[in-house]
């Protein structure tokens, strides 16, 4: 259903935003020796109790209830597990949620990475109140962006201001 990894990331981060997170970190790294691709998304949102944390991983549970978190978690878990990887969700009420998925990048069923640049870009500019920490270490690329730092430099000018949008768009084109 999700055509690429960057769409999975978009979707999982939207859960963090719905959970009222103010700081969200996204780390994508590929170990060049083992070819294992790791994705870690950590937030400081409201978190879940252990029962809910179990249920959100179950695709059949989620379709029957009106809860806020959609099918995105079981979809990511499915992608990880069918490509010889792993999936782990850690959460506690009031302590945020961390999702870690790994994939074997040599597996034939692994979806393409997709456009990570666009995922980062739209997340930053459509959530001016959230601080993002992005790390992308894959195939020789080594990209880090801390939007909290960016916001301090901007001194009150919001990240969704047209001037900043154009700057960020260029910046990401050049660096990612």
């Amino acid at each position, binding site marked *: 259903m999700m055509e690429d990894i960057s769409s999975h990331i978009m979707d999982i981060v939207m859960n963090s935003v719905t959970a009222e997170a103010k700081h969200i970190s996204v780390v994508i790294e590929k170990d060049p020796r083992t070819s294992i691709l790791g994705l870690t998304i950590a937030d400081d949102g409201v978190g879940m109790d252990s029962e809910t944390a179990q249920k959100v991983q179950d695709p059949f549970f989620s379709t029957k209830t009106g809860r806020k978190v959609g099918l995105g978690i079981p979809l990511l878990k499915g992608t990880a597990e069918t490509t010889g990887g792993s999936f782990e969700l850690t959460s506690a009420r009031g302590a945020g949620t961390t999702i870690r998925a790994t994939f074997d990048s040599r597996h034939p069923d692994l979806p393409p990475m997709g456009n990570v640049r666009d995922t980062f870009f739209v997340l930053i500019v459509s959530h001016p109140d959230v601080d993002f920490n992005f790390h992308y270490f894959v195939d020789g690329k080594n990209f880090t962006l801390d939007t909290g730092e960016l916001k301090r430099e901007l001194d009150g000018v919001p990240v969704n201001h*047209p001037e900043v949008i154009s700057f960020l768009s260029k910046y990401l084109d050049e660096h990612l």
Partner: protein
Amino acid sequence: MNLEELKKIREKAQKDVELRQKQSRVRIVVGMGTSGIAAGARDVLKTFVEEVGKRNLADVIVTQTGEKGLASQEPMVEVFEEGKPAVVYGNMSPEKAKRVVVEHVVNGHPVSEFAI
């Protein structure tokens, strides 16, 4: 981060920030639930954001929301214009988003053929 460039942006933008915070004339809300994302909502959102940047639409805010509950018409977009009823667009694409920016957001005429 190129600090010189950021400093220039900051000086240029700070003038209209106050104005913008008081009232944005148009708010564009893109549905970014799982089904919206699977249907291509990210590219629609990106197009709106880039058009706002390119056209320097300082009084327009682009934002997102979770599931809209109409999965068959994703990607969905709502446009809220000050003093007018909201317009809901369905089955959006980057091309359609560009038309909505020009015709609706800039010129004030909703694109009725995309509305649902």
